[in-house]
């Protein structure tokens, strides 16, 4: 919780204060963004939340392009966007997987109830 409150504060501060964003800060943001996107990929977001994962990749690409231009403020902004969008992709992936698993168990319960006599005892 604290992490996200700081995250937003940092985002608001970073985006307006170009001089405040140095290379180290931007690089740290970028590293965290890469980790978030990799985590989303590992969480099977390509299957369960493809639009969010694509958006996270696009933001990551923008951040990496800004690195080439040494525009550290843009790097930080796009990296933060990539990170939060990667987190969203992971969350949606978890949601879809949980719903699919629950639906499968529900089908299994229905089938067993049917097998036992057509209804819940």
């Amino acid at each position, binding site marked *: *919780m604290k992490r*996200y*409150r700081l*995250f*937003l*504060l940092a*985002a*608001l501060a*970073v*985006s*307006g204060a170009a001089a405040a964003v140095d290379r180290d800060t931007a690089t740290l943001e970028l590293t965290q963004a890469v980790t978030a996107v990799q985590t989303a990929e*590992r*969480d*099977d977001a390509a299957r369960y939340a493809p639009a969010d994962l694509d958006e996270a990749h696009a933001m990551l690409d923008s951040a990496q392009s800004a690195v080439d231009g040494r525009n550290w403020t843009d790097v930080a*902004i796009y990296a*933060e*966007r990539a990170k*939060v*969008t990667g*987190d*969203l992709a992971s*969350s*949606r992936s*978890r*949601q879809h*997987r*949980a*719903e*699919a*698993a*629950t639906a*499968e*168990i*529900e089908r*299994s*319960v229905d089938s*067993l*109830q049917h*097998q*036992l006599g057509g209804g819940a*005892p």
Partner: protein
Amino acid sequence: MKTSSQHWILASAIALLVGACATVPPGPPPDVVRLQNDLDRMHSDPRIASNGGAELANADAAVDMLARNERTLDRRQYQQGVYIADKLVGIAEASALARYSEQRGMQLGAERERLLAQTAVTETRTTTIVTEAPPPRTVVTTVAPPPRVVHTETGELMPRARAELMTMQDQMPGVESRLDARGLVIRLGDFMFEPGRAELTPTAEQSLDSVARVLRADGDAGIAIEAYGDDGMALRRANAVRDYLDARGVDSTRVSARTIGYAPRNTIADNDRRVDIVIRSDYR
């Protein structure tokens, strides 16, 4: 004179109206209103409100911060704030609905175990049963929750990550774990695979995600995957489990996969196709 007076009154009224408009602050911008409406909807949904946790608090804080500060932010700051708050609202909703589904899945899983046990009793009492291709079934016994401090079979303190795995059974529907001479055994029942195939079901993937998370943190652990069955299906299933764990960051060089034939009678049915993930205690 009268006309002049009317014009003066009208002009004064317009001036007052314009002045009033200038001093009454405009409402929050549409983006903020939309986010606030989204949060209101989520708070009134019991599935989300009761499972929102830290993510919902984060979203509340983000939107509140944006609403309070939007007038002091420049355009770029504001856009960044809206973008992030929007995603945090999405994260809160998805996380809460995931928790709701996981809890419901656990309740249904318990119901399924009860029905499976009931089905097994019914079949034992019946001398002749003619059914169309009965599905292979494992009667899963629920293991009592282990103590917080867990020891290996040799009496040593179990590594924390492995002990955590034993306490995570309620998060892994259809999975039971136990300690035996081989180490910590995570058992996947036959229904964790698609019928007659080596593909993992979504339930199995969900459970293996938890296993993978722990195994990544327990780098010392060697892993053996033992699939029961005498044909190629068993090995394909063992390999499917190994590949799934590998895709989730568990290095496949730590993992061996093999088939070991059917389990002995009296412990498990001949047609059972279970797969055991053994976290070997002899590996360092």
